[in-house]
């Protein structure tokens, strides 16, 4: 299979759209598909969203003394890996919880649509929200849109239902499978109405799949831990990932070398070639050059020293003259002595002699150097130990096997020590427990008939309880090992062959071989146990939902299974569902799975269709509604959640004391 290269696509910043007067006065709805992965926004008049961006912001960390950096939003982030640790999302799972970030996203969107009306966004908004969005989150979202942007109307709907409706499914009984970024929903629809009580949500989605593949690759190639970035894993997933129709069967195929070779994806990671190692000739040249420089430096230093010494000598000679001319106890002479740090005449003479000898030596050296006599001493190559290689074939063979045995012995010892260290590092291992037993025995108090130490062997117990078992990896041993390997490499062709694979060219060393991972990554959707989750997978949950209905309803549901959400575009997704349904549904019963026309954008298109419908405003909340009925209020329509107002029992001003009457008249329950 040919070598593949990573594309590493960079995002391009979104354009700013024109906001014409016509548009300003039109009151045209803005359609917002606010997904946990990407956000799609557009005017209801356009048939494709104007803006599609990752629903993220990158907020630089506040640093003291530094100005706050610019916050980047959505497609402004051209290189997502550079700001990986500063990324923030407004989502907690599939629900919006951080409204500061949501506000920044709205700012980004409205400014890119070039809205310039003062203090308000004068367009109705259609916004998607998660299935069973908590009232609390909705009220905060309404607060943001009505108070900060003063939108005239607002309408909420569920993304998967918009997609469902857009694909022309209405008034039927069916099951919607919606694969999101954080969650996968399985929602039964009975005669056009969602049956929320039987719906299920699996906490797995596009994120889990990418994460799974990312970790698999990182662990397989620990050396490339940092090169395998989440966005690259995402690219690999979408370019090469697939969902196996029969995972276990397919796994067995991968065991076959031919199948592996035919299906493995070899991916070249970017790498930089290290500077080529110098040839021996070049190395010699370089060394010579260095030596020459050193010699020159030495010569210069020598000359300086010579000048210095001569000056000193002159001083000393002068001093001697002074001493000889003046009487010994003369203060002048003594002072001169003191200033030179010399005590008496003998020391003076001695140092003069020394200095003279030194100067002469230096002079001789300089002379020699100038004549070019000085030769740089080449460091002698290390004398390799004389190895006598036996002449005859048979002898050589036995000699080699002997060497191999020696090497194996050292390697084994090393491994055993390593193993022991590892064992002792953990508490539960047999070795560690044996050690603890010995220690506690030694520390036991009752020592009535204690004859410990009578025999020399008694002391060996301390060797056993020592963590290093009394012997460690010695340098000597390491040297011996290297020496043996060197000899073997020279004389044993087998040894060379065995160890050759370690040396890979940088090109090969930076290749990823993606085999089983191609299907193991996405498989976690169907087998969440791969990620340590106890939840049932997509197929099993689907089956669970179907089985919670009486057979005839389940049958009509199974005949209309609708799949939407970007993740279901993964190759093999529908085939896999078909295969699992065939296994789980009653024998020879009918079922059918259909994919949304455009799983990624149909939710937006459906929302747009809804926004353009005649009675759209009947389903929208107006400013007045918001003021009057509170934040969590919204109008129910075929694509929305069911409105569950907070029960009226609760009052936030004062606790209601209810008497739970009957037998225990004293008991009161306080509801806050």
């Amino acid at each position, binding site marked *: 299979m040919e070598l593949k290269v990573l594309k590493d696509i960079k995002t391009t910043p979104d354009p700013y759209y024109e906001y014409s007067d016509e548009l300003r006065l039109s009151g045209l709805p803005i359609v917002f598909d606010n997904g946990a992965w990407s956000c799609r926004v557009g005017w209801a008049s356009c048939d494709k969203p104007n803006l599609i961006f990752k629903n993220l912001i990158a907020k630089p960390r506040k640093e003291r003394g530094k100005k706050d950096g610019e916050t980047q939003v959505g497609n402004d982030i051209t290189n997502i890996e550079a700001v990986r640790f500063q990324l923030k999302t407004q989502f907690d799972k599939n629900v919006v919880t951080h409204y500061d970030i949501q506000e920044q996203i709205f700012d980004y969107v409205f400014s890119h649509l070039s809205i310039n009306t003062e203090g308000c966004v004068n367009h109705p908004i259609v916004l998607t929200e998660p299935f069973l969005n*908590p009232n609390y989150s909705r009220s905060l979202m309404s607060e943001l849109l009505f108070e900060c942007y003063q939108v005239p109307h607002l309408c909420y709907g569920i993304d998967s239902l918009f997609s469902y409706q857009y694909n022309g499914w209405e008034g039927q009984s069916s099951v919607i499978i919606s694969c999101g970024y954080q969650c996968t929903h399985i929602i039964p629809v009975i005669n056009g109405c969602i049956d929320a009580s039987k719906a299920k949500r699996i906490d797995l989605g596009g994120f889990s799949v990418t994460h799974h593949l990312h970790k698999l690759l990182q662990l397989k190639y620990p050396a490339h831990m940092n090169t395998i970035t989440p966005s690259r894993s995402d690219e690999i997933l979408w370019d090469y990932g697939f969902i196996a129709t029969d995972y276990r069967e397919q796994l067995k195929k*991968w065991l076959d070398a031919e199948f592996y070779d035919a299906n493995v994806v070899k991916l070249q990671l970017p790498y930089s070639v290290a500077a080529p190692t110098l040839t021996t000739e070049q190395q010699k040249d370089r060394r010579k050059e260095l030596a020459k420089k050193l010699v020159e430096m030495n010569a210069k230093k020598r000359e300086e020293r010579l000048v210095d010494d001569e000056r000193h000598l002159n001083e000393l000679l002068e001093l001697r003259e002074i001493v000889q001319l003046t009487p010994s106890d003369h203060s002048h002479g003594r002072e001169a002595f003191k200033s030179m740090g010399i005590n008496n005449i003998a020391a003076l003479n001695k140092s003069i002699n020394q200095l003279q000898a030194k100067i002469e030596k230096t002079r001789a050296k300089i002379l020699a150097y100038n004549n070019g006599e000085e030769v740089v001493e080449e460091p002698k190559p290390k004398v390799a130990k004389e190895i006598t290689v036996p002449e005859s074939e048979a002898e050589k063979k036995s000699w080699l096997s002997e060497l191999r045995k020696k090497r194996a012995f050292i390697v084994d010892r090393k491994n055993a020590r390593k193993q022991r260290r590892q064992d002792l590092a953990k508490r539960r291992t047999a070795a560690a427990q044996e050690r603890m037993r010995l220690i506690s025995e030694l520390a036991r108090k009752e020592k009535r008939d204690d004859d410990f130490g009578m025999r020399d062997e008694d002391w060996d117990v301390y060797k056993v309880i020592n963590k290093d078992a009394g012997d460690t990896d010695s340098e000597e041993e390491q040297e011996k090992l290297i020496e043996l390997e060197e000899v073997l490499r020279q004389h044993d062709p087998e040894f060379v062959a065995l160890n050759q694979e370690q040396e890979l060219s940088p090109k090969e060393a930076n290749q990823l071989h993606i085999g089983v991972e191609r299907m193991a990554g996405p498989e976690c959707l169907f087998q969440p146990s791969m990620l340590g989750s106890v939840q049932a997978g997509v197929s099993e949950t689907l089956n669970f939902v179907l089985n919670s209905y009486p057979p005839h309803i389940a049958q009509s549901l199974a005949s209309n299974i609708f799949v939407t959400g970007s993740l279901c575009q993964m190759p093999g997704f529908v085939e896999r569902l078909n295969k699992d349904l065939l296994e789980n549904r009653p024998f020879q019963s009918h079922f059918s799975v259909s994919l949304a026309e455009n799983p990624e954008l149909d939710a937006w298109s459906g929302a747009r269709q809804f926004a353009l419908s005649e009675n759209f405003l009947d389903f929208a909340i107006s400013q007045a509604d918001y003021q009057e009925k509170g934040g969590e209020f919204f109008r129910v329509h075929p694509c929305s959640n069911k409105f569950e107002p907070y029960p009226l029992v609760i009052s936030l001003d004062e606790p209601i004391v209810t008497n739970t009457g009957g037998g225990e008249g004293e008991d009161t329950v306080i509801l806050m």
Partner: protein
Amino acid sequence: MSQTNQVQDDSNQTTIEDKPVPRFIFKNPDYEQRKLSRRSTSSNLPTKQWKSLKQILSYEKNIPWPEDTVHYSSVVAPPTFKPSLKYSDISRFECNYTEPQTKLHYYDVEEYRLIRRLPSDIVNGYLSLRGALNPLA
């Protein structure tokens, strides 16, 4: 009342013009002001803490809903009823063996040898990926 408001608005505009960030004109200045004042009263404290989903859900749970209400937390998928298959951590093949020390699954002898040489961070990586890492063991 309205006059004073206008005056305030005017002064706001002039100050905005001084700064180079007259950005989002479509935002309600009152809302912005409110947000800022909320922040300035407790400048040392972090800005408004948003409830996490977990907090929201536990808050919703404590509300006496009518009996048949369906909530976010009531549609969690059921636990699986199928026994989970064992896959080798190294090669991903279906396997039967577990290395007793690291608790890694392995497929054959070669993988076993590899496991013995794996550094502990890789071992822990594999274990935590499938949620089997128990740091106390």
